[in-house]
């Protein structure tokens, strides 16, 4: 049991686990996406893109990610900066900010549904204040914009903290002397943030953005709760094809498309936010 074989033997259980529970299902999905009735084909992808809902779902997902992630990034930076500056109550603030993380995305969607619903909190509030005569249909099929806004709000509320936690850890890694040196050498608080904190935070920003972007393209339960079928997204369509339309091959094609987008964007951010080895802390 000694010598060269040992490290590989120790890696074996984890490798087996990955192969059985990740690689095998992935291969299966990929196989299904490119076959129909036993033969290789691209028909599944044609069916996918040919469906009238596809462009809507595709652009909804992109738009959602493009709006939610930047807002979350700015908010997470702000929250992380505030938390890092706190001298007392840091733990408590971090904990409170992170509470939404402990709630499943479907539950989060339902909480916001309880707010925006026809008999929800918002309508009750508005009618009690005498601002509306009868309940407003915020999430009806005609009000795509309010559904979109509601989803954006719910997503921001639910998933900003994950970025914040990563950024708080990252800010903690920057030695205080850099900020002090910048301060002595004439940088205002804003300049210090832009010239010192942001560049030195790049590794953490990279992690936070990649993680958040991948999650943004997998958005499903919040949208399902708030928009139902009125607001199609890619993951929702995957679910739809798999369970309602009973076509697992097209569902697999959707899954592969989401994977491709995630991988593509991950590579993009890895490259754009790369820190050269010599310029690391």
């Amino acid at each position, binding site marked *: 049991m000694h010598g060269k074989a040992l490290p590989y033997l120790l890696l074996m259980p984890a490798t087996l686990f990955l192969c059985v529970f990740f690689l095998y299902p992935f291969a299966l999905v990929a196989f299904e996406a490119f076959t129909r009735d036993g033969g290789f084909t691209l028909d599944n992808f044609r069916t996918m893109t040919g469906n009238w809902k596809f462009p809507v779902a595709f652009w909804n997902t992109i738009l959602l990610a493009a709006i939610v992630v930047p807002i979350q990034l700015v908010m997470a930076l702000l929250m992380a900066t505030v938390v890092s500056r706190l001298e007392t109550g840091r733990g408590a603030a971090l904990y409170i900010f992170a509470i939404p993380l402990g709630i499943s995305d479907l539950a989060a969607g339902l909480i916001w549904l309880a707010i925006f619903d026809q008999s929800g909190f918002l309508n009750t509030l508005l009618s009690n204040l005498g601002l509306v005569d009868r309940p407003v249909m915020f999430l009806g099929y005609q009000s795509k914009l309010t559904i979109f806004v509601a989803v954006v709000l719910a997503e921001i509320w639910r998933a900003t903290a994950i970025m914040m936690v990563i950024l708080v850890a990252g800010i903690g890694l920057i*030695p205080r*002397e*850099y900020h*002090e*040196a*910048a*301060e*002595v*050498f*004439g*940088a*205002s608080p804003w*300049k210090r943030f832009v*010239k*010192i904190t942001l*560049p*030195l935070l*790049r590794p953490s920003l990279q992690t936070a953005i990649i993680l958040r972007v991948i999650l943004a393209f997998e958005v499903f339960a919040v949208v399902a709760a708030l928009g139902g079928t009125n607001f199609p997204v890619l993951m929702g369509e995957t679910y739809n094809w798999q369970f309602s339309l009973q076509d697992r091959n097209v569902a697999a094609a959707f899954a592969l498309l989401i994977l491709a987008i995630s991988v593509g964007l991950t590579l993009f951010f890895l490259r754009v936010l790369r*820190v*050269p*080895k*010599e*310029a*690391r*802390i």
Partner: protein
Amino acid sequence: MAEIAIKQVAKRFGGFTALHSIDLTIADQEFMVLLGASGCGKTTLLRIVAGLETPSQGEVWIGGRRVDHLPPRDRGIAMVFQNYAVFPHLTVFENIAFGLRMKKLPQQEVERRVTRTAELMHIEQLLKRYSGQLSGGQRQRVAVARALAMEPDVILMDEPLSNLDALLRLEMRAELKGVLAASKTTTIYVTHDQVEAMSLADRIAVMHQGRIVQAASPVEVYRNPAARFVGSFIGNPPMNCIPATKTGNGSWTVAGLTLPGPKSDKHRIEFAIRPEDVDAGDEGLHATVRVVEPLGPHTLVTCDVEGGLFRAILESSAAIAVGDHLRLAPKADRIRWFDPETTNAL
């Protein structure tokens, strides 16, 4: 002209008093070293002058202007940090240029100053590199160049050499002294290394438990310590202190030797002498040799005097063996006396 005046500056952290009402004036172009063991408050005092720490009370004046309410960038200072704080994401050039860019100086002037200070610190071939590609000594040079490029009135240095190895420290010490003297800035330099302090300073402020015990020239601090702490902290081996008993008005007996000393009401005071200020002879303090360490130019002899340790630096030609009884004659003009209660010089 940039005289620094520290007026009754105190700093408390919660219930702990780091600085007790410090008064210190540093003349224009003077090289002042704050010397003391860790935790004595020297770095806190420097950071208060820099503006990185707010004093609990007192005033700081630089060049005739009260600055304690100003942010660091408005104080006309530059600083060299203990861990250099060379920004890892910027090249050496941009590091040195950082403060100049914040001042929005024209590109031409930035280039001129960066080139000039880089040449001064012998790092002109490193300008395109990043901090991660530099050795500790090179980073140190970048940190000093960055401070010099600001052409500040005041340079503050927080243990700048403590992270360098011994040989490099020696080299940088001499170089710093030359460069800073030429730059004609007022310098405050914090260190716990007494040799560094002695070799660099125009004046040393010895700090102990949040107070300045003595602020004087290196020779004065060494020869005439204002308190027992200064005598034992500065000098290696430290000053010898042994009890003296009163035998008359202004006459004291020390280890079998009667000496003229200060007039005092006290019955017992302390006699102090530097190890190199005694000679072995026929008369003097009664001493029993415990350890003999020949060091080449001289011999370090550790003895028992009045039941306490006493170190003497004697000529290496003297044939001394463990167990010998010696008479150590103190040089009359080098004897100092301390009050045993206040520990201050008499």
